[in-house]
C-alpha cells in the first residue's frame, strides 16, 4: 500500500448523537443513568478515579499531601485543598458554551464540598491537589466531578470523615429530572445539586441555579438525596473491590 498524497485528517470520526441514551429509551424521571466507576486510573498520581455515566466521562487525580510552596500565608495547622477542573477540546461543548461554564466557580464548589469530608487537621502545612478532567460532557458533570474527587481522595488514602456522593436534578418544563443529560440541562429552567454524606445522612452542599418554586425545591432536594444514596453504595463497593484486589483476598 503506497503513501497517499494527503495523509492528514482525523483517524476516526465519530458522529455525535448517534447513540441512543436511556432517557430516550424511556428512562424514568427519577432514574439514574447506568454508572461505571473505577479507581487507580492514573499511574503517577497518589490516587485517581474514573466515573462514567453514559456519555458523561470524568477522570480525577489527587496529588498530595504536598509541601506548601510558601508564598501566600496559609493556615499552618491544616491542609489546604486546591481543585482544578479542565475540559478536553472534544468534550462536546461548543466554545461559547465553554466560556459560559464558570470553571472557577465550579472549582470553588468542588473544593468546599471536599473540605466538608477531608480531615484537614491531619495534614498540617500541606496541600492536597485535586485535578478533574472532564473528558466528555453530557450533563451532570459537576456532580460527577464531586463524586469522582471523593473516590480519588479515598484511593489516595487521604483521611476522610465519610464518603460523599453527589447528584443533580433539573426542572425542565415543570418536570423534575434526575441526573440530567446535556440537552435536558439546556432546556431546564432551574437546577439543584446536592452532595450527600453517606454515613451521617447529612447534606454538605446545595447549589441551585435558575428558578424553582418552594415545593419544587424541597422535592428536588429529596430526589437528589435518593439518587446520591444509590451512588454512595456504588462508591463504597468500588473502594471495597479495589482493597480486596490489592490485598489479594
Amino acid at each position, binding site marked *: 500500500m503506497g503513501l497517499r498524497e494527503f495523509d492528514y485528517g482525523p483517524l476516526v470520526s465519530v458522529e455525535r448523537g448517534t447513540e441512543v441514551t436511556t432517557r430516550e429509551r424511556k428512562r424514568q424521571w427519577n432514574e439514574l443513568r447506568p454508572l461505571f466507576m473505577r479507581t487507580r486510573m492514573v499511574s503517577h498520581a497518589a490516587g485517581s478515579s474514573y466515573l462514567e455515566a453514559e456519555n458523561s466521562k470524568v477522570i480525577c487525580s489527587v496529588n*498530595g*499531601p504536598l509541601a506548601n510552596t510558601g508564598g501566600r500565608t496559609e493556615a499552618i495547622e491544616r491542609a489546604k485543598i486546591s481543585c482544578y477542573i479542565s475540559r478536553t477540546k472534544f468534550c462536546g461543548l461548543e466554545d461559547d458554551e465553554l466560556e459560559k461554564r464558570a470553571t472557577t466557580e465550579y472549582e470553588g464548589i468542588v473544593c468546599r464540598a471536599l473540605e466538608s469530608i477531608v480531615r484537614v487537621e491531619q495534614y498540617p502545612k500541606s496541600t492536597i491537589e485535586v485535578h478533574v478532567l472532564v473528558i466528555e460532557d453530557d450533563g451532570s458533570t459537576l456532580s460527577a466531578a464531586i463524586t469522582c474527587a471523593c473516590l480519588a481522595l479515598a484511593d489516595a*488514602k487521604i483521611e476522610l470523615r*465519610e464518603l460523599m456522593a453527589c447528584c443533580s436534578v433539573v426542572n425542565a418544563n415543570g418536570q423534575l429530572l434526575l441526573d440530567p443529560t446535556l440537552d435536558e440541562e439546556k432546556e431546564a429552567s432551574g437546577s439543584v445539586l446536592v452532595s450527600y454524606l453517606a454515613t451521617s445522612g447529612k447534606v454538605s452542599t446545595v447549589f441551585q441555579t435558575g428558578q424553582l418554586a418552594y415545593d419544587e425545591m424541597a422535592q428536588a432536594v429529596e430526589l437528589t438525596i435518593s439518587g446520591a444514596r444509590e451512588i454512595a453504595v456504588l462508591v463504597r463497593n468500588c473502594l471495597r473491590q479495589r*482493597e480486596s484486589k490489592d490485598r489479594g483476598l
Partner: protein
Amino acid sequence: MARIVTPGSILGKAGEVSDGLGCYVEGDEAFSSVTGITHQDGRGRLISVDVIRERKAIVPLVGSVVTCRVLRINSRFATVEILVVDGIPLRSVFRGIIRVQDVREFEVDQVDIPKSFRPGDIVVAEVISLGDKQYHSLSTAKDEHGVIHALCSQSGEAMVPINSEQMQCPKTQINEWRKVAKS
C-alpha cells in the same frame, strides 16, 4: 475478624475503639477514616484500621522521626529536605531546619554546625515543631539521631563512624567531624 472498611464505616462504640490510626471518634461512635482492614489487639479489641503501608498518605508531624538530606549550612542552622517520615517515603519533599541549639543535648553553646553536618549528608532527626510557614523545626539532640550516611570530602567514599563525633574515610583514613547517630 478482620474486615474491609471504607471511610465512614462504623467500627463500634466510642469506648471500644481507641482513637488510633485510621479511625476517629465522633459522638459516642467510632468511625473509620480510610479504606483498609480492621486490626485488633490480643484481646480482640479493635485498635486501628490498617492501610497498605506503601500507599499511606503521610506528612511530618510533631514527634515524627524523619530521614532527611542536608541541603545547605550556615553558622546558625542547617537546611534539610525531609524525605521519609516514620519509614514511609513522602509524596513530596518538605523543608526543615536544624538550629545550632538543637544539634545535641550537651555543651549546646560549643556546637559548630560545619563540624556537625555537611551538605549531602543523610540525617535522622525528630520533628520538634511545625515551625514557620516554610520550615519544620527538627532536632538531633537524642543519641540515636544524627548523621547516618556521609561522604568523604576528599575521596567521595562513604565514611564509617568511629565515635559519636567523628567519621573516618576507609580510603584516605581522613577523620571528619559529624554529629553521628548512635546505631
